[in-house]
């Protein structure tokens, strides 16, 4: 899709050095291309699932295929789309934002990318090696034990996630060290751009959460290949142990894929409001609070498991608490708009759309933290609606905002505004039609992860609307692809700084040279480009 841009731009791609590049910008682009490719695959999987569920009693997919597809859709969108897209943006943008020539460990950075790609390839090899994993991305034991999962799908799951996870862990080490040690003179932590702040917090979350997943995967592998019984109750193991391990990784993972999105919104809303971010310290601090709290909320995925009322109450309270720093961010974004000079360029349009849709996902999240409500709604389509509002209405909307924002920096060309608006409205209409009715279906009693459902329960219409919405989202994605293709071939030149933005990536050329900056910049405040443009009204130090 952006091949033309890649060929045209100087540097590694032009000399077909893509296999050996260690430039953070090239690797960032590779990550994003990886994420986009898997987004297309995971999107097609979602469309197939939605076709099968469009009405009751359809036989487009058999249950085995359906289970493989919903499992791979979840794994793909989390591990091979959300994480690579965000890590890709972080790779490209963070060194530029902190005035560094590259990441701390460029070779490790390349290794991280190739591990992630290799992990993804391993996962998808399962389809030709006798069947993909089919126990859900959450892979609850004992359904994954050799007694129940006789094929090799779960083994591909273990290896795919462990390998791509190793890439994610090394990538997080790299980003954290880069941000902690690679900042240019004058950029104390209190001046670091908010996207970089959120990437730093995310990196620590990855370092704490992913090893737990890797350990659990190894235990599962021992069960499957070496006759272990960690998670097999029939052999004295404990099925619930897997859930604890998985979700003590899995819930921080939600914040891993949403904190960088918060960071993007915290960059875009101020720039297009002509004001600094309202409450910088509180937005950064609330990110840290979310980071800590995210490790004490995992059992809200397990209220129906039978942990006991007091355990449930603890995790309920912690899960509600995490809504407070999340709310602080939303309120600060809205306050940034107040008395601003708002320009509705495409990054801003998507950022405003993000706030509206993410708040819905956040509020339904609070309802699921309430134990009695969760005991009704958990494992129903209500949760499917909720999580898609967070991950699609949240993460992916922010990624679109970030794409329209940073695309000119990467390619030197602006994305088209009219196609951008078409993309936006198709996406917003599509996600509303696709995911809002799911809440209603869940409250009507439709369980999740069903390959079909009985007639006569009144679920057909909502499901049909949801399917239509999924196709609108796909149409929006095609418009985006068209927009990117046209811009790359002959879009409006962007110049160094098309947005009157604030942070250092806009002070260098578009695309930046291999070494990023002519000379290492020096900053004296949070918004170096604002200070340069308004010497009479510089930010307070």
């Amino acid at each position, binding site marked *: 899709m952006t091949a033309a841009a890649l060929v045209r731009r100087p540097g590694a791609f032009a000399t077909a050095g893509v296999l050996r590049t260690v430039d953070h910008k090239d690797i960032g682009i590779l990550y994003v291309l990886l994420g986009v490719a898997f987004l297309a695959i995971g999107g097609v999987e979602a469309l197939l699932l939605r076709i099968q569920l469009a009405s009751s009693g359809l036989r487009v997919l058999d249950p085995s295929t359906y289970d493989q597809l919903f499992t791979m859709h979840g794994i793909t969108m989390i591990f091979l789309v959300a994480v690579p897209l965000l890590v890709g943006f972080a790779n490209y943008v963070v060194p530029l934002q902190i005035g560094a020539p590259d990441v701390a460990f460029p070779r490790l950075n390349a290794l991280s990318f190739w591990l992630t790609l290799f992990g993804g390839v391993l996962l998808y090899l399962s389809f030709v090696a006798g069947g993909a994993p089919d126990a859900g991305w959450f892979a*609850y034991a004992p359904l994954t034990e050799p007694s*129940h999962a006789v094929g090799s799908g779960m083994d591909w799951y273990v290896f795919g996630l462990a390998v791509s996870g190793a890439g994610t862990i090394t990538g997080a080490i790299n980003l954290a060290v880069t941000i902690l040690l690679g900042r240019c003179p004058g950029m104390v932590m209190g001046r670091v751009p908010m996207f970089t702040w959120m990437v730093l917090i995310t990196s620590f979350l990855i370092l704490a959460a992913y090893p737990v997943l890797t350990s659990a995967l190894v235990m599962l592998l021992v069960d499957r290949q070496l006759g272990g019984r960690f998670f097999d109750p029939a052999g004295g193991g404990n099925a619930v142990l897997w859930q604890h391990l998985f979700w003590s990784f899995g819930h921080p993972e939600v914040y891993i894929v949403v904190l960088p999105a918060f960071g993007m919104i915290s960059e875009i809303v101020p720039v297009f409001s*002509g004001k*600094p971010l309202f409450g*910088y310290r509180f937005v950064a601090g609330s990110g840290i609070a979310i980071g800590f709290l995210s490790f004490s909320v995992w059992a809200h995925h397990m209220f129906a498991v*039978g942990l006991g009322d007091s355990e449930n109450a603890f995790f309920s309270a912690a899960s*509600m608490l995490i809504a407070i720093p999340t709310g602080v961010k939303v309120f600060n974004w809205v306050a940034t708009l107040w008395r601003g000079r708002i320009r509705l360029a495409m990054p801003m349009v998507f950022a405003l759309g993000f706030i509206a849709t993410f708040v819905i996902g956040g509020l339904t999240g609070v309802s699921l933290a309430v134990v009695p409500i969760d*005991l009704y709604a958990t494992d129903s389509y209500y949760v499917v609606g909720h999580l898609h509002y967070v991950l699609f209405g949240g993460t992916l909307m922010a990624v679109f905002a970030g794409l329209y924002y940073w695309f000119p920096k990467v390619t030197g060309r602006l994305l088209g505004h009219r196609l951008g608006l078409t993309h936006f409205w198709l996406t917003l209409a599509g996600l509303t039609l696709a995911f809002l009715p799911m809440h209603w279906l869940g409250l009507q009693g439709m369980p999740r992860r069903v390959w079909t459902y009985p007639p006569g329960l009144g679920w057909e219409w909502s499901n049909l609307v949801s399917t239509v919405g999924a196709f609108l989202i796909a149409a929006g994605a095609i418009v985006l692809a068209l927009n990117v293709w046209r811009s790359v071939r002959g879009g409006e030149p962007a110049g160094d700084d098309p947005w009157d933005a604030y942070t250092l990536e806009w002070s260098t050329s578009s695309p930046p040279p291999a070494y990023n900056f002519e000379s290492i910049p020096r900053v004296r405040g949070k918004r170096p480009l604002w200070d340069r443009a308004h010497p009479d009204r510089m930010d307070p130090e």
Partner: protein
Amino acid sequence: MATSLEPIVVLSLIVGALAALVFAGVLAALIVFTIRFRDPRPGSVPQIHGHRGLEVAWTAAPLALLATIFALSLVTLGQIGQGATFGSLEPPVHVTVVGHQWWFEFRYPGGAVTANEAHIPAGVPIELDLGSADVIHDLWIPELGAKSDIVPGQRNVLRLFTARPGTFSGACAEFCGLEHAWMRVLIVAEPRADFERWLRSQAAPASGQAGRGLEVVRSAVCSSCHVVRGQLAGTSIGPDLTHVGSRATLAGGVLANTDEGMRAWIADPQRYKPGALMPRVPLSAADLDAVVAYLRSLR
């Protein structure tokens, strides 16, 4: 209280109303500010960096709101959790539930065993003791409120209540493999006297019509998974068929329990529930008719 769902509905309405208010407020601010302060002309506005008082306010207000919701949720939990009486003076009725891939087994004190259809007395608290024969399942009757996972190696209790008689449809809510979708269940609540009569009839041994059907059932592979108490000694891997004719549906809700439904199911289970553990048993048309007639007579 009318059902064990009622306290959850009350709490949900409160939480839903508060969430709607917050959403309306944020959305209104978003739209009003965007329209009011939209200005594409170049130039700059006063640079506002923040406001400590506002930060404290929008930290403290949600904290108070969430603390209230949390307190209310504990009250609701007391109404539906351990020791809940649902306003009834009757001692609870216990039923043992066993989750299987992909059907529910219900075992009553006194020997009654049924599958995918349980009767309960209305106006009496029900305590379902949940166990699993294989993987994790979950029993959820939406009209009766909360659900509970059914975890192998663990005993969970699900407390349900309905004051009014009625038939309530439910399902397995935890993904449990290929036919998770067709692991549905019916709960029939009826007046106490009717329930006791039903329980006695279900506990009694089978009185199906003897003849060709019973002979075929005895000679074919049926007994390797099924039992008809009093008429077919077998194993309890599959549903107990002693009173299968009295149930409304077959195979976890995939077919109605009619002559046609029973014939279709036995003739080709995989056609209706692909992945189900019941194999196709080759029977001549005459034998099939006889088996269907026999099973349908097991009232």
